[in-house]
């Protein structure tokens, strides 16, 4: 079980959280092309390496936040609030 460091509550066990998929996916306006909308809905990188992803502390403070996780090792590199940019970690994505 992962140990996830909620930016608001501190480190908590994974079962308190819900996974929210890849982070920084911008929801386009309603007038974009069909291809752009498709990309927003369905196209993801399936990163092998450092992935920016969303979590919600659903059985805790209830807040969504972002995390950088290395999908090869499950190691977290950073936790940060929604709306803040992806932190520089010096590691390749």
């Amino acid at each position: 079980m992962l140990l996830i460091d909620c930016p608001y509550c501190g480190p908590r066990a994974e079962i308190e959280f819900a996974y929210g998929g890849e982070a920084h996916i911008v929801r386009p306006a309603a007038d974009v092309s069909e291809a752009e909308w498709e990309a927003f809905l369905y196209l993801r990188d399936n990163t092998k390496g450092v992935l920016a992803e969303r979590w919600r502390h659903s059985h805790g403070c209830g807040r969504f936040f972002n995390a950088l996780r290395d999908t090869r090792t499950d190691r977290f590199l950073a936790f940060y609030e929604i709306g803040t940019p992806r932190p520089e970690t010096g590691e390749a994505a």
Partner: protein
Amino acid sequence: MSGVFRLAGRGRIDPSRPVAFRFDGRLIRGYAGDTVASALLAEGRHLMGRSFKYHRPRGPVSAGSDEPNALIGVGEGGRYTPNLRATQVEIHDGLVAVSQNRAPSLRFDIGALNTLAAPLLPAGFYYKTFMWPRGFWDKVYEPLIRRAAGLGRAPEAPDPDHYALHYAHCDVLVAGGGPAGLAAALAAGRMGARVILCDENAEFGGSLLADAYSRIDGLTAMDWVARMVAELERLPNVQLLTRCSAFHYGPHNMVALNQRLTDHLAMPPADMPRERIWQVRAREVVLAAGALERALVFEGNDRPGIMLASAARTYLHRYGVACGRKAVVVTADDAAYRVALDLAEAGVKIAAIADLRPVPGGTLVEAARARGIRILPATTIQRAHGHLRVTGAELAPVGEGGAVGKGRAVACDLVLMSGGFTPSLHLHSQARGALRFDDALGVYLPGEAIERVRSAGACRGVFALDAVLRDGVAAGLAAAGGENGPEWRVTRQDAPGTGGFAGALPRRGPGHLALAFVDFQNDVTAKDVKLAVREGFRSIEHVKRYTTTGMATDQGKGSNVNALAIVSNVLGRRPEEIGLTTYRPPYTPVTFGAFAGHARGDQFDPLRLPPMDGWARARGAVFEDVGQWRRARYFPRAGEDMAAAVARECRAVRSAAGIFDASTLGKIEVAGPDAAEFMNRFYVNAWTKLGVGKCRYGLVCRDSGFVYDDGVVGRIAADRFHVTTTTGGAAGVLNMMEDYLQTEWADLDVWLTSVTEQWAVIALQGPRAREILAPLVDGLDISAASMPHMTLREGSIGGVPMRLFRVSFTGELGYEINVPSGQARAVWDRVWQAGAACGLTPYGTEAMHVLRAEKGYLIVGQETDGTMTPGDVGCGWAVSKVKPDFIGKRALALPAMNAPDRLQMVGVLTDDPLSMLEEGMQLVAAAHIPAPTSAEGHVTSSYFSPALGRSIALAMVKGGRGRMGTGLYAPCLDGPPLKVTLVDPVFYDPEGARLNG
């Protein structure tokens, strides 16, 4: 002393406490401290089981958890547990154990004929043989194979014990309580760190419990262990767990331990859990898992009486048991010489030590020589003789270049083998630690790890006792962040063993028929592994799967390195170029009960009870599970079946009034100055113009444009909405709302609160509903004029605060009375009493479904399947045309989402009014179309309608709304297809006159 092989004055058993147990029905006597294996060995008995595939007679190879052969069934009835290692099962009075995989008896087993067929059962046998004829697989091959293969049997009665779970947190978890583990725990514990030390055995000490030679600070190894354990017990910051296996190393240092609490007790306390799983979150982990001696791979190496040299030493020093009278030792390592010396000193004759090394030397070898033990250098064991017990060995010289010469037969009743020691890497590997091959030792050692873990002692290739203790201290200090640790002086010890051997022993002749086992538990031989390589398997992972080596419950503890070496030899590549297979959890098997823990029976999952559950139970309702909720399905009267009860409940609602507990509906309060703006963005509907006190049917789509949930929304105030969701969608809708609010629209001043369980909902439906309710609502005017359909009022009912919705999911005049759930039962009782004179009838979820289907109201999740648009289900009218954006807007504009041949919701009537369609039935264009064909649609809801006196159904049909009046066919599994006609989905009161009454 009972047991002719028991040696008085030796071992850690308690001779003053005799213990009697049964093995295969026979009474066996041992002592407190014995295992089933040690007690049987004390009687001179090695035969304890039959093997997996060939049903070969087998005895214990080891004295611990790595035992592959001596697997037994223990206990009776619901407490029967199969496949336990006899080497670990502690005996107690009344214990009942049985051997496995034999019929009719252990000594004579029919299945052993398989061993004669062994040449016909090579690696990949199953893949190769049972291909044809295809029909034979289910009826002939599989049942036969299942009967012949497999280990043990499953218990048939429910498990009467209970099991516990405990989440623990510590600074340092030490897995393994041998010398390295004890040293690490003491080093960390003395610094004040929170330490957990666990060991799978009944007592701490590990290899020291079988070490009569070493001296630490002048103490015997066992006395030193006792002193260290006593100190650890005094430290309040140290948790000691024996009979507790670390079996799973999860991400972020969460390690699962399995503690066995009662199995060793004859009379456990009544409420004592049988086992407890510890989920330990450790800041740092020290693995002190030790090393396992390797078996040697030679013909007949599985005969009972052939065991690891270290096992014989353990039986001698821990249990006071001599495993035989005359032993042959075959070794490639110095350590076996100490075993030979110890056994000789205890009176066991050592017939010979066959050493694979050309020139064995060193202190131990000299000591053996000095004692007069015959040492045969450069000698292998060609084969072992015997059937139910080894009777002799053929020892043969290995010449220059590896050629094996003519051997000589040596009679013996015990063969001890030592191929050197394999560090236990299982937990390190589970922690996703890398492994590196060590040329000097010829084994893999722990490399870099991802987790915060370090190995200490023999599990990282440190073997000399003084070095092991120093290594343990260093690991404990590093884990706890300290510098000064305890120091002990090892005053006597054996030099660390040199040498070792992996792979199949050299032999004379090709040995086409020789069964030399690599993996005892899965009956995989050296020949099988070689064959796999010859057939083209190059990756060790593929060899593993093809031959099943290392895939048994012991996870290749004793076999992996030998298998690797064989592959390496055949391919002519170095072991590190081949790699090692991944070790899977669990390290040792764990009972299902332990995994289930508290989650069993009624407590498997939360059973959520709605407010009127007690009332419904008292009235004899029949219930159904709806997610975690238990809801009343119908209320049968004497003599009624479900159909009769549901028909009566439906008629009551249509003709008088019905009362229904709708409390499980999800409810969310959306409040704040931007509430209306939020609703506009979230729902497909428009909300700005919805007046206070008004309700509207709301529909939620995902951004994919597909319907996600629905429910009535009431506007309580300009800045406050009372949103309802489906029962199953409550949590999901709230999560989706929070998602968009927090991540897309964080600027909005609006907040969401779940009020599902704040408000109980009493649905009062039927033409007489108003008449029943009006006198109860403390003066509120609920007349048709002042409170029409789709309105809401706040008020009170008998003094209880109330949000009253005039809404209907039945098509009748109806109200949903929302009251605080703590007072709902009292309100329900009042309504119930008031309605008695009007024929008020309780109805359940089944009648609710029938009534809504008669009106053509969809249920999200029943008519929809995650690929339906609002238009598909006839709700296109709800979608706002003017809002600049809402969730799903862009997707709903895509051409494919508006294609004319999309599945559309329709009503379906069977031509025969009494024929019932089944939900899920396909609808096709003609009565007889040869398969395969594609369906025109499928049935989503089907009921018998009491109001119409016939069956009705809803279906999703391609372009359905344009096909009204046309026919389709529903193929049946039994009988001819049913002819159906597509109709409008509103079967009852299409004008809605009753609704607005």
